[in-house]
């Protein structure tokens, strides 16, 4: 329960950063998708039932601040979560570069699922070409954000909680990599 609350708080901070802080810092429409990074992290470290439900709810809440299609982000983020869960047993998750790689793959999957859902079900036109043009910038921003977050979280843990481990964090710490 407390872990769920932590995830919800993290999602709240991500939303505030994306809606208010990044538009001022980055001076444009582009911003890193921190919620997607959180979903990839959840996919790596939470069990399917609990994580899936949480991600779907987060996606629905995300619709309140992103886009105008109820259920779109729920579908897309849930899809990204399932994709990460699907490969967790097949790869070595005890590696920090994996998180970065999965963030890139998650961004690409998000683009495909979102463009598909918008193109087939809504009244948008030329959505594939528009989104394709934006994809490289989004990939770069998400990668940089994941890299910074990874280093920041590890530094915070080493500095303030050296004897404790945050859920799943140990696996991402390069000190434990062989």
């Amino acid at each position, binding site marked *: 329960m407390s872990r769920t609350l932590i995830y919800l708080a993290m999602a*709240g901070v991500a*939303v*505030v950063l*994306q*809606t*208010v*802080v990044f*538009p*001022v810092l980055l*001076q*444009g*429409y*582009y*911003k890193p*998708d921190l*919620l997607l990074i959180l979903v990839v992290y959840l996919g790596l470290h939470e069990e*399917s039932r609990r994580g*899936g439900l949480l991600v*779907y709810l987060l996606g*629905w*809440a*995300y*619709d*309140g*601040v*992103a*886009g*105008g*299609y*109820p*259920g*779109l*982000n*729920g*579908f897309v983020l*849930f*899809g990204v979560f*399932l994709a990460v*869960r*699907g490969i967790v047993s097949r790869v070595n998750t005890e590696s920090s570069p994996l998180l970065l790689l999965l963030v890139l793959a998650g961004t690409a999957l998000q683009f495909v699922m*979102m463009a598909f*859902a*918008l193109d087939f*079900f*809504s*009244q*948008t*036109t*030329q*959505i594939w070409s*528009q*989104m394709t*043009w*934006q994809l490289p*910038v*989004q990939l770069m*921003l998400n990668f940089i954000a994941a890299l910074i977050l990874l280093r920041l979280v590890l530094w915070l843990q080493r500095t303030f909680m050296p004897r404790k481990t945050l859920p799943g964090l140990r696996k991402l710490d390069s000190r434990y990599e062989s």
Partner: protein
Amino acid sequence: MWEWWRKNKPLLLGGVLLLVALLWYSVNLRQQDETNFLENVVLRVTGPIQSGLDEMINGTADTWGHYLYLIDTAEDNRQLIDENRTLRAVLTESDEVRLENERLRRLLEFKETQEIATLPALVIAEDASSWFRTVTIDKGSDQGVTEGLPVVVAEGVVGRVVRSSPRYSRVLLITDASSAVASLLQDNRARGVCRGQGEQLVFDFVLRLEDVKIGDRVVTSGMGGIFPKGLVIGQIKSVVRQEFGLFQEIKVDPAVDFSHLEEVLVLLRSPQ
């Protein structure tokens, strides 16, 4: 069979759940123009935080920008820096007030030309995602803002309200891919539909025979039932007339600078 089911159960179950999520999304598209319970809650919760943070960030950005500027003059001498800092602080402050006054005066003049009742609002946040173009304003259903109302500034059309909670609303910008505005050319009255393309617009369904020139002004036609007639949308940026086909390919530069939206007007009564 049982063995196969047991082996592929997670994959099948995941696929079914994903399909359910997709179907649920498509079903919800019918209620796309209404604010659902969860969106209402999210707007209510995030609105005050965004509003407070927006105010704080703008203040900090002003101070920081001012401070950075003054670092360059540190080489001269301490006295000049102090004097310069004080003067610039006053100047920045008065410039900010003057610019705000200019913006508000333009908005007020524009407001007075409108026959429809208007409500001024502040933009407090942008869309959380890079894929969409929406902004959050600090007025909601308590002030009479409901879904579908047009939002404008003195320069032209901004968008329409798509979500509304008691104190905050979300506005879909005309540059969003799902936005379409019934429009016409101010000079020759050629009709078409302006669709959002992220940072610019395309003017669709303008017949090949129509004479369209770069720089022509595009205004709302009032046909869509959302925007009143005659509001400026933008200027023609490029025209491609193919040898075949019914329509021309026209790109439009929006009249409004969406990256610097601060104050907007909500037109409280829709034209129809």
